[in-house]
C-alpha cells in the first residue's frame, strides 16, 4: 500500500514552497552533516529561507516536532492498551492535560460518548513492555484522577488488521 500523500489546507497559512518542503521531508531528513542545506538545494531556495519556513510550520502546528521517531515495538514496548475514561465534561480539559503530561501516554484525546453503551469521553493510549506494565500505568492514571474517575476500561489490541502510513511514513 502506498503512503498517503499529505493533504494541505488549500487556503492561507502555507504556500507552494511550504508544500514543496513538506513533500521533500515527509519521508525524513537526509542523514548528512547539513540536512537543511541539502533540502533547500533540492527545492531551490536558500537555507535561511528554509529554516524560517520550517520554524513557521512548527509554530502553526503543522510540524509537531523534528527528530527521531522510534519504532516502539522494536524497542520492546510490545503492549498497547487504549485506556478510556468517563470524567465530567466540566473537568475533562484539565484532566486530559494532566494525563497528557505522563510520559507513558502517547495520545490523549477527548472524544464523544455514545450512551448507554459507551460512557467514555477521554482516551489515553498507554504503552508498556507487557500487559502488566500497561495495567500498572493505567492504575497510575486511576490514582491521578481519583474521585473524578467515574469508570474506565482498557482495550488491548488483539490483532492488527490493517496498517498503512497515516503519518506519511516512507
Amino acid at each position, binding site marked *: 500500500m502506498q503512503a*498517503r500523500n*499529505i*493533504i494541505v*489546507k*488549500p487556503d492561507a497559512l502555507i504556500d507552494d514552497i511550504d508544500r514543496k518542503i513538506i513533500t521533500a*521531508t*515527509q*519521508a*525524513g*531528513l537526509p*542523514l548528512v*552533516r*547539513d*540536512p*537543511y542545506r541539502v533540502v533547500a538545494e533540492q527545492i531551490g531556495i536558500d537555507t535561511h529561507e528554509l*529554516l524560517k519556513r*520550517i520554524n513557521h510550520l512548527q509554530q502553526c*502546528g*503543522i*510540524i*509537531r*516536532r*523534528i*527528530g*527521531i*521517531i*522510534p*519504532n516502539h515495538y522494536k*524497542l520492546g514496548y510490545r503492549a498497547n492498551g*487504549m485506556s478510556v475514561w468517563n470524567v465530567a465534561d466540566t473537568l*475533562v*480539559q484539565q484532566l*486530559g*492535560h494532566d494525563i*497528557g*503530561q505522563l*510520559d507513558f*501516554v502517547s*495520545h*490523549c*484525546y*477527548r*472524544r*464523544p460518548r*455514545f450512551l448507554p453503551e*459507551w460512557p467514555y469521553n477521554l*482516551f489515553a493510549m498507554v504503552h508498556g513492555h507487557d500487559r502488566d506494565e500497561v495495567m500498572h500505568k493505567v492504575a497510575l492514571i486511576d490514582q491521578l484522577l481519583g474521585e473524578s474517575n467515574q469508570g474506565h476500561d482498557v*482495550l*488491548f489490541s*488483539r*490483532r*492488527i*488488521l*490493517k*496498517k*498503512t502510513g*497515516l503519518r*506519511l*511514513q*516512507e
Partner: protein
Amino acid sequence: MELSLIDKQIMNHLQGGFPVCENPWDAISSQLGIDVDQLIERIETMQQAGFISRFGPLYNAHEMGGGLSLAAMQIDADDFDRVADIVNGFQQVAHNYEREHQLNMWFVIATEFPYQVAEVIQQIEDSTGYRVYNMPKQEEYFLGLRFEL
C-alpha cells in the same frame, strides 16, 4: 543488535527535538560527547536495524486540513473476518485493530476533505450492515511521547 549506552543517549536526546539551524548537529554532538560523523553513523545504523522508524519532521495530519476520525464497530465473532475484509478494502481506512471489547473493531479514517468522513462511514455501514460509532477527537492533550531508554 543491542543498543549501546551512547545509542540510548542519542535516542533519548533526539526524540526531544532536532535543532532548526544551519549546523544542527553541533550542539547535540558536544552535549553527548560524540563527533558529528559518528553521531550520524549511529542514527543510520539504528535506522537500518529498525529501532528508528524515521528521522525528520513529524507532521500533524489534522492540521493538514484533511478529515480524520477514529471509528468503532461491534462485530459478531463469526462474521468478523468478512467485515474486516470489507472495512480494510476502503482506501480511507488507515489503521484497523481488533480489540478486546464488545466494540471489537477500531479503525482510523483519513480522508482528503473533512466532509468525506461521514460519507465513508455511511458506505461502511451500508456495505457491512453494522453500525459505525464515529469518535472524532474533540480536543487533544498531547505533549509528545518519549520512550526513555
